């Protein structure tokens, strides 16, 4: 199905028509690198954990149900994803005649699919995954062994994400609903994105999670002892 991000003059209740926003207006780090999708493998290897970048070019969305269709039901991906970036996302959309407008698109939690990321890369030959919340150490190592990169977009950046969509190229698997369908999009400076697993397998989340577990035990003890002192039995 064909789509478009171009507006039209239909009755516009509840959603005022928008003037286009240039990347300069929404770019928080104009000096940061821009990675193209489909991606240059040499460029991806030069990214390190913690690097901030933006993404431009053709990307696809995929989340729980699309992963399941491709990997558990064995169906071929609905678009050629080779070398491209895949965003873990289910956008909010609006139908405008025969075309679609993405009204909000930020990332969804990547860890729900930790067991499947590496197989997804093998099946689709995608080069870069983008989501939120990080992936497990095992999932990160498996991605790195395939030469793939995983980056994070801060959760909840729906308006910024939608403003980077220049065109809806197409959408497939709409029987899964607009959230779980696979959207093929042309984006300009989607981000900011942070490298979370780089090609060496380093994982932004790994060190912090060990620290957090220990801090949690301490916080739990502290809270219990204060509650015991203040709210006596």
């Amino acid at each position, binding site marked *: 199905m064909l789509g478009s991000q171009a507006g039209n003059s239909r009755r516009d209740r*509840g959603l005022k028509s928008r003037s286009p926003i240039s990347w300069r207006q929404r770019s*928080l780090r104009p000096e940061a690198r821009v990675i193209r999708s489909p991606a240059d493998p040499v460029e991806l290897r030069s990214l390190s954990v913690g690097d901030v970048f933006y993404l431009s070019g053709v990307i696809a969305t995929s989340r729980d149900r699309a992963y399941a269709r491709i990997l558990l039901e064995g169906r071929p991906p609905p678009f050629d994803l080779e070398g491209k970036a895949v965003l873990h996302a289910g956008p909010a959309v*609006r139908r405008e005649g025969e075309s679609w407008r993405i009204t*909000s698109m930020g990332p969804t939690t990547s860890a729900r699919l930790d067991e499947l990321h590496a197989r997804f890369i093998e099946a689709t030959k995608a080069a870069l995954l983008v989501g939120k919340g990080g992936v497990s150490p095992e999932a990160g190592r498996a991605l790195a062994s395939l030469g793939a990169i995983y980056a994070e977009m801060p*959760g909840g950046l*729906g308006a910024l994400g939608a403003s980077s969509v220049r065109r809806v190229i197409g959408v497939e698997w709409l029987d*899964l609903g607009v959230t779980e369908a696979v959207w093929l999009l042309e984006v300009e400076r989607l981000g900011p994105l942070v490298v979370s697993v780089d090609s060496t397998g380093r994982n932004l989340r790994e060190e912090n999670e060990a620290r957090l577990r220990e801090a949690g035990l301490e916080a739990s003890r*502290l809270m219990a002892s204060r509650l015991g002192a203040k709210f006596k039995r």
Partner: protein
Amino acid sequence: MPPGERGSWERSRLREVALELVAATSTSLPDDVKARLAGLASRADSPLARLVYESLLANAELAETSRSPICQDTGTPQFFARIGEQFPWKSLLLASLAEAVEEAQGLGLLRPNSVRWRSGEPRSSAEPWIHVEIVEGSSSAEVVLYLAGGGASHGGRARVFEPLRWREGLAELVVRAAVEVAPRACPPAVVGVGLGPTAESAALLSKRALLRSPLGSRSWDPDAAELEEVIEEALEGLPIGPSGFGGGPWLLAVAVETRPVHPSAVAAAVSLGCWAHRRGILVVTEDLRAALPYHGGREV
């Protein structure tokens, strides 16, 4: 009165103001939430935490000016209606909420999120949750709407403790929700805690705590306020940070709501809320004048 069925003007008016509640809640943060986020942003230490806070604030501003959803995950809309006993349009008001959700989905102001539990297949109709209370001696109605994504819902939990064990139990329950879920639930987060006689009463109280306004204010009840302080002190130092990256504050607010418990059962529950704390309130009078007090008090 125009021709047509009785109440047809009232019906369309209520739909209009309910849609305005949904649109405002999905696309703009309440004034108190914006202020609280800006306060936390100024305390971010690491460059990454600063970038996240800048992004959140820029995103909220862009959503408001472009009237697009702050976050694409608009959750399962949850309405909390307090309806005056003398408010003449009770059932029309409740019907208008579900209709407004459906219309907002068509406009791209909400994402359709209702799927079959068995198959995950999308359902065609919108199915918001609506809680109703009747208020004595009032002729107006107040409807609070809360939108939060699936990630935040994963923080929800309830346990029932024996009276001698609730202190340790509550500490473990709250800290585990923070450590295990908050990093992926789009922090900075709001932590709501409820104490009551049964699991479902505590869970509802924890959601009411989450919706406390203004954000960050203390309970009127000195015991609950003391509990809020203990929980906040223990949680705020956890190295979670914005987006779970560490390097800055992660806690937007802690609020506690309590009710008397049972002599042999203390139920405690936690609700987590994400940084995009989309809480709106619509106040409607009996002659259907309406306003949105959390969004600058604007009349609709």
